[in-house]
């Protein structure tokens, strides 16, 4: 998505043809443009862009959502936010998710993808593992399951009494008893992260497999002739060549981690979990707006902060990738 070239910079036969064609403003042509551009854009502007624009202004008001009065209060909402213990806690938790989740998800996905693509015999041509198709089909499936269901399902698996997880641990001799994984402030956030990771590893695995398969086989052959082992091929050839894919994946996963609303809603009936250890910004925002108090101004300010953090995160990923030398050499991918 991020690298789709701007519309006008792509020279193309279609454009040339359009220029060559007679551009008489016939009814056919006018109605065509009006409907083909006008209709989608009208819907899009009304329900997406207009709310985005409004958000910036609403965040500067004390609007309660029900009256027509929108008293302008400048940056007061932002001041309130940064003094609010719950919001700061939510910001901390979201930041932890944003830093940790992409890392573990991508490391796991990349490991599995390399095993699938490069785990084959070291003699002859470089090839993938036998039966990799099966693993890909199974791995990808969690990604298509509704997030809310992923949360509910794992919530039941981690149930202290009836859940599969404790039963399994007790059965194999780990005396875990009836430990409440999601109900203990020490383990709740970590367990939640495991569950979110479960939903996305397969998706990124498939993405990386495709990227690795896009690398010309000669490169692997050459490295192997020069005596490079699997680990060296992975670190010095595969990863540098797919670093732009890794960057994209990192940004996507970060955006998902900074949201996390659906998973947390499914896993914790009372928002925030044990001792607010899983409270995230999106939840604070949601309950500030729709939880009965109707603090629309304040909630929207949270939305602005969340957006800024998201943009900063994306900027950081691009920055790190650039500093560590990603770009020019792998334009092909």
């Amino acid at each position, binding site marked *: 998505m991020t690298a789709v*070239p701007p*519309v006008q910079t792509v020279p193309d036969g279609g454009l040339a043809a359009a220029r060559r064609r007679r551009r008489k403003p016939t009814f056919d042509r006018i109605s065509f443009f009006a409907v083909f551009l006008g209709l989608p854009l009208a819907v899009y502007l009304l329900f997406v862009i207009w709310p*985005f624009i409004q958000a910036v202004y609403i965040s500067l008001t004390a609007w309660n959502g029900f009256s027509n009065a929108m008293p302008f209060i400048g940056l007061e909402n932002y001041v309130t936010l940064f003094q609010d213990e719950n919001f700061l806690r939510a910001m901390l938790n979201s930041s932890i998710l944003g830093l940790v989740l992409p890392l573990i998800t991508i490391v796991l996905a990349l490991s599995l993808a390399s095993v699938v693509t490069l785990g084959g015999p070291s003699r002859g041509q470089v090839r993938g593992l*036998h039966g990799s198709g099966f693993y890909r089909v199974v791995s990808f499936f969690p990604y298509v399951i509704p997030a809310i269901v992923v949360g509910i399902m794992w919530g039941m698996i981690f149930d202290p009494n009836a*859940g599969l997880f404790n039963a*399994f641990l007790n059965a194999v001799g780990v005396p875990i008893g009836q430990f409440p994984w999601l109900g203990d402030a020490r383990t709740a956030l970590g367990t939640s992260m495991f569950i979110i990771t479960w939903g996305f590893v397969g998706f990124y695995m498939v993405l990386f497999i495709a*990227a690795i398969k896009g690398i010309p086989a000669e490169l692997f052959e050459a490295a192997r002739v020069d005596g490079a082992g699997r680990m060296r091929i992975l670190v010095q050839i595969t990863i540098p060549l797919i670093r732009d894919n890794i960057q994209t994946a990192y940004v996507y996963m970060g955006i998902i981690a900074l949201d996390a609303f659906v998973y947390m809603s499914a896993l914790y009936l009372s928002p925030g979990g044990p001792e607010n250890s899983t409270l995230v910004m999106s939840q604070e925002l949601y309950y500030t707006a729709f939880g009965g108090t109707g603090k629309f101004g304040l909630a929207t300010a949270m939305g602005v902060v969340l*957006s800024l953090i998201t943009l900063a995160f994306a900027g950081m990923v691009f920055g790190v990738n650039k500093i560590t030398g990603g770009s020019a050499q792998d334009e092909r991918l």
Partner: protein
Amino acid sequence: MQTPTLKPGKAGSSTGESPVVPQPRTSTASTKSDKTVAVVSHGMLIVWALLVVVPLLWTLVASFKTSSEIFASPFGLPTQWNFDAYVRAWNEAGIGSAFLNTVIVVVVSMTLTMTLGAMCAYVLARFAFPGSKAIYYLLLAGLTFPIFLAIVPLFSVMKNLGLLNTLVGLILTYVAFSLPFSVFFLFAFFKTLPSEVAEAASVDGAGEWRTFFQVMLPMAKPGLASVAIFNFLGLWNQYLLPTALSPAPEARVLSQAVQAFAGQMGYRTDFGALFAAVIITITPVLIVYILFQRQLQGSVAQGTSR
């Protein structure tokens, strides 16, 4: 925009095989370390595959158990295999009506998104006109900013239009929010179609409307199919938009109904029915996934090169 090996029409096929097709002359003899690597590799993948499959199977089995059986032993099998829990979930927990709502909302908004998205993408890909760059950036903004920034103002827009708690309102927001993705994907696709055909149609006297609907749209079928699958999954799984904009019980979609049902579990204890509700929610995506998984994975592959 696409890597040379990934033609949209048969995207699925390019991810199906090993990077290099083994040639006959390649010996299959492997060294000792190869065997170790193979064992470790398969071990990792098997553990991961079990981690995916076991929770799902456990949920499936539990949906046939009674609450007391569920609490008696997580490993036990149900004494009676019947669909009672499914009937209870469907009728009493509101899963049935939510299922129908979901089908209506998803089918209508998918149709609209595909139509509007294809139209917009076609114009952007095929015509040069002032302002197209601005439109591009507007669409990009919709993909970049979190929905949470828009959710409160969106709520008031819907309220002012009288669309809260209506399926129509939900459909319109679904269409609007899935539009940027659809346009970007189809934009890339329309770029790859040969322009000669459109020119020929034009020479033959077809107007812009006819050229699009009778010539270009049929050619774009593979691209449309990929977008349709992604939109289906994305919209079927949508939770935030319906929860915020359509909280009324009678207008609930499936994700909301399952969550509401799970929320009641503190008071009522029909865990069998909850497991059944989960299975009912997963089944349609499972079917779509099994039918279209090659195409889906192919599209992911395509997405990486952008």
